[in-house]
């Protein structure tokens, strides 16, 4: 058993920490050894990456909280501009240093200001001798901010000359971050995915108080058997476990089976879980609807999922416009004459043509076409005469806003705008009926 050992921290706290982060012991001990003792300078920047819900954020948070290390935790999605981000860091810094509660807002427009203010903030606090940790969650957002932000954060220790360590958390590898100009290479640490055994262990840990741990573990086992193929997201699995547990307990509550009767329980729950995989997991129906159905013991079949309502009612000419757009997008220009003219020439059957048409146009995706071609096809597929009224043109734009068509290219919109049809063949079939 890889016990967490570190001279700087009491053993009891470490043991508690170990209980809180199952299956991540090796990573935690690695981090601890990098952090060193409180007053020791640590590595300037650490980059932690791993797939969705592999416990990056959770491990960092519990580690810093249980060991009571001074830290700032910021989500880069939430603070979407560099200015917001820097200000948020400073505010949190003020909050954790002084318990006065008053947060004087400091305008901080660029990184230069930030370093100045940061020095002030650190100087004013009593924890000067401890390492301060700045954790930036979802660090991939940093790439979209100003170019100097990321390199500057990586060298924050050097720039401020203070005892600070920046921890970046991300789902993508460091190679995608590295800026062109040379920058400080952070220490990278990989959090591997949880294996099925890990998932089992973690999920079983939080069993409901009314039932025994073994009973719940058996349930988790069944759940993983159904869902492991499609979903390894711990959060999602936890959610699904909570949603379906009451159904699993039903036979026990009714007294038809005891807690040990796993086979019977399995028979009861398995089709139910499969149904859940097709509906709730894909968010076809919401979890609250799912719970209600469970409660009423009704058939989930009556609830129509979101995908069931695919039919879109369109005005008469909009339908034709859409069909014309589809034809224009997927038929090559040279076939227009053959398809839409009454007195077309003889169809030349050449080998070249046949060979070319083998690669289906549907695999190639829609091609852009000019407005004139769309209208020409429209006139030829509508039986009676269509006047080019303003209504027709406004319908085209409304189709664009409905995202059934999309406009290609933004320059020179006035003369010859080009469109693409973005709907699928099935949709067109439904419209054309």
């Amino acid at each position: 058993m890889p016990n967490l050992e570190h001279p700087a921290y009491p053993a009891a706290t470490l043991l508690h920490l170990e209980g809180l982060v199952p299956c991540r012991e090796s990573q935690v001990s690695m981090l601890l050894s990098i952090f060193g003792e409180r007053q020791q300078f640590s590595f300037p920047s650490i980059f932690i990456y791993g797939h969705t819900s592999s416990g990056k954020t959770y491990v960092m948070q519990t580690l810093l909280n249980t060991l009571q290390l001074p830290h700032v935790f910021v989500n880069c999605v939430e603070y979407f501009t560099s200015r917001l981000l820097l200000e948020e860091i400073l505010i949190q810094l003020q909050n954790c240093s002084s318990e006065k509660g008053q947060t004087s807002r400091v305008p901080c427009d660029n990184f230069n200001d930030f370093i100045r203010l940061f020095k002030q903030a650190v100087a004013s606090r009593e924890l000067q001798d401890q390492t301060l940790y700045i954790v930036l969650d979802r660090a991939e957002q940093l790439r979209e901010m100003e170019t100097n932000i990321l390199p500057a954060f990586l060298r924050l220790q050097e720039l401020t000359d203070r005892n600070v360590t920046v921890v970046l958390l991300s789902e993508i590898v460091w190679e995608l971050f590295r800026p062109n100009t040379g920058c400080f290479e952070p220490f990278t640490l990989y959090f591997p995915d949880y294996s099925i055994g890990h998932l089992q262990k973690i999920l079983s840990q939080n069993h409901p108080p009314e039932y025994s741990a073994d009973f719940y573990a058996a349930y988790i086992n069944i759940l993983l058997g159904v869902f492991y193929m499609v979903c390894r997201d711990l959060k999602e699995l936890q959610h699904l476990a909570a949603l379906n547990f009451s159904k699993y307990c039903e036979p026990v509550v009714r007294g038809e089976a005891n807690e040990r009767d796993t086979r019977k329980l399995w028979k009861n729950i398995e089709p139910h879980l499969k149904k859940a995989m097709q509906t709730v997991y894909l968010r076809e129906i919401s979890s609250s609807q799912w719970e209600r159905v469970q409660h009423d013991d009704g058939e989930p079949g009556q609830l129509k999922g979101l995908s069931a309502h695919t039919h879109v009612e369109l005005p008469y000419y909009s339908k034709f416009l859409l069909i014309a757009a589809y034809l224009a997008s997927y038929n090559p220009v040279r076939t227009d004459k053959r398809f839409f003219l009454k007195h077309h020439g003889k169809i030349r059957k050449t080998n070249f043509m046949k060979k070319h048409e083998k690669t289906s146009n549907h695999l190639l995706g829609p091609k852009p076409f000019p407005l004139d071609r769309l209208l020409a096809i429209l006139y030829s597929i509508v039986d009676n005469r269509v006047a080019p009224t303003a209504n027709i043109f406004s319908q085209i734009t409304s189709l664009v806003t409905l995202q059934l068509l999309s406009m290609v290219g933004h320059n020179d919109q006035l003369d010859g705008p080009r469109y693409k049809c973005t709907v699928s063949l099935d949709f067109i079939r439904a419209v054309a009926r």
Partner: protein
Amino acid sequence: FGEGNNASEDTELRFATCQSLWSQIKLETEQIQENLNKQLFDNLISFLRQSHSEFQEKTTEWTYQMKSREIPTAALVLGVNVTDHDLTFRSLSEILQNNFTPYIALLEAKDCPGIKNLMQKLMRQLMNCYVDVDSLEDEDYVQVSQNRIRCSMTSIINWYESVTKKTDSETPSKKRTSSSRHCQSPPVVVIFKDMESFTTKVLQDFIVISSQHIHELPLVLIFGIATSPMIIHSLLPHSVSSLLCIELFQSLSCKEHLSTIIDKLLLTTQFPFKLGEKVLQVLINIFLYHDFSVQNFIKGFQLCIVEHFYSQPLSVLCCQLADAKKRVNSLSHEQCENVRRLPSFRRYVESQVSEKQIALLTEDNFLKEVIQKLLEDLHFYNENYVSVLRCLHVFTSSLPKYPLGKQIRELHCACLEHEVWETEEYESSLQLVRMLNKSDLVTILQQCVEILGSSSGNEFDKTVEKLKEFLTQFQKLEAEAFQERDVSVSSQKELQKKTDLYHLQKTLLELKESRRSKKLTKFEMLRFEVVDYIDSLVRNYLVPADHKTLHEIMYFNTASVLRGHLNAAPRIALHTALNNPYCYLKNQALKSDGGSMSNKAPDICIVYKLHLECGRLINLVDWLEAFSTVVMAVEGPNADAASSDQVDDTIHARFIRAVSELELLGFIKPSKQKTDHVARLTWGGC
């Protein structure tokens, strides 16, 4: 409004009538819309309440802790008629504001190109609505919030906490009033008006951010969706959509909406104003072919009203019957002349005896009396028309393949257009009615009795009685049929006894024959009677409106005007303007006979006509030559010396100006293929 007409045509009165009529109709439509949306809104509010109750409880249950918190989301499928959505959302937010929560933000895609703009917009709306609810006494607070540039979720949360705390600490009386309408900590509702137009990134970011703070801020999202709910999945990846708890709400389809509007506005006797067949057809066509927008339909209807009252001097009589009678008495001489000029009135006069004709054409007072009588006729005609139309609709809507249309509006159009009993469709539908089985026929008749009974006119008493008589006869028949069945059952029993094949055959044949003959005699006779009676009703009451005298007063039938206003054709208009400037400029000098080009026309017209003769690429030098010859055509003899080899500078300048105007209008553009050539952007005549 009154311009062009002289004062004697009661312009002011007409204007007032028009205004009052429109306000009545507007009120009615709003009422209808409210009722139609009521169901949807009720569902939505109950959903919001429920999602909100979970926030309140803060249970420590195990399942509650384990479940990841999802943002409750309502997906509101509204159909493709985007123009109507605005109204729906407005009334929705009003309803929510009144009895659910004061914190509502309406977001539109065009305001939110980035997450930053979205947050700004959201904050502004939320904090403003805070001001709306409370009095303006804490203005300084608002000042602070407006100065704050930081728009992040934390500041929204801080604001929310301060607001809810404030309501807690308020005086008890005030608290009671507020909590009676709003719950303790009302959720924040964010409405995305047009989900389709939002960029994926903005939505994703917003959802991710708000899902992290769902514990502190009870947030509810409403997505307005125009196409299908599939768009949620195509816009949001699974990792984001798994943060939402989506429930679907579907609004009434716009076609049904239109049917109710037509039913309530046109097929009633409440409003004296009526639409003629062609006009109605134009409006319905625009609806079905182009936009599906009920709002536009109502706007078109309004246009009809205004146009009718503007162009028809006699529309002053287009009001309730009692008022109209009074107004007839005060008609001026000119107005009487207007009446005499009406084609339908002339037809009426011609059908009278000669003395009466003279009286009608010369004596105003006699004329007024007749007008009163005729108006009364017209009024009763309208009343009866609607009821009988509904009866006929009950019959035809149950037939297979709907020869006379499925919707009552189609039937209405058919009846207005011509004498419906002359048409083939009517004939075939009568044939079908003659083949209806008994139970259907009885239910239809019962419905007819109800419709006719509920109509106000007492003319239908007899009809109702007649129909009831039919019904009783049918019942009697049924009783007889029971007996018959007994007989047949007994005969079948006999049949079972018999074992001889020959006898069996014989009795079977007998049975068959007897059954056929019996039915012909009783039930079918009655059925024929019913059909004939209905036919006579139709012939009596469903006469097209333009056969009625004085129908011009109430029926608006100039569809061409309406079409010109509503169905704009910009290309054609531009072409006629450039090709035939007389059409718009009304300058006598420009009146030409089409083919030739006069040099008096504006330069741009000449340039346009010349360019029509060219191919795809136009040589500018040749064009200029042609232009100068046209312009110089008149001055030719005395100026030929000057124009021998060099084009005049002013003409050159005029030409360049005209060409650049054409470029501005989008007919040509400079081409890169050849120097001094321009490319044509239009093909054909227009």
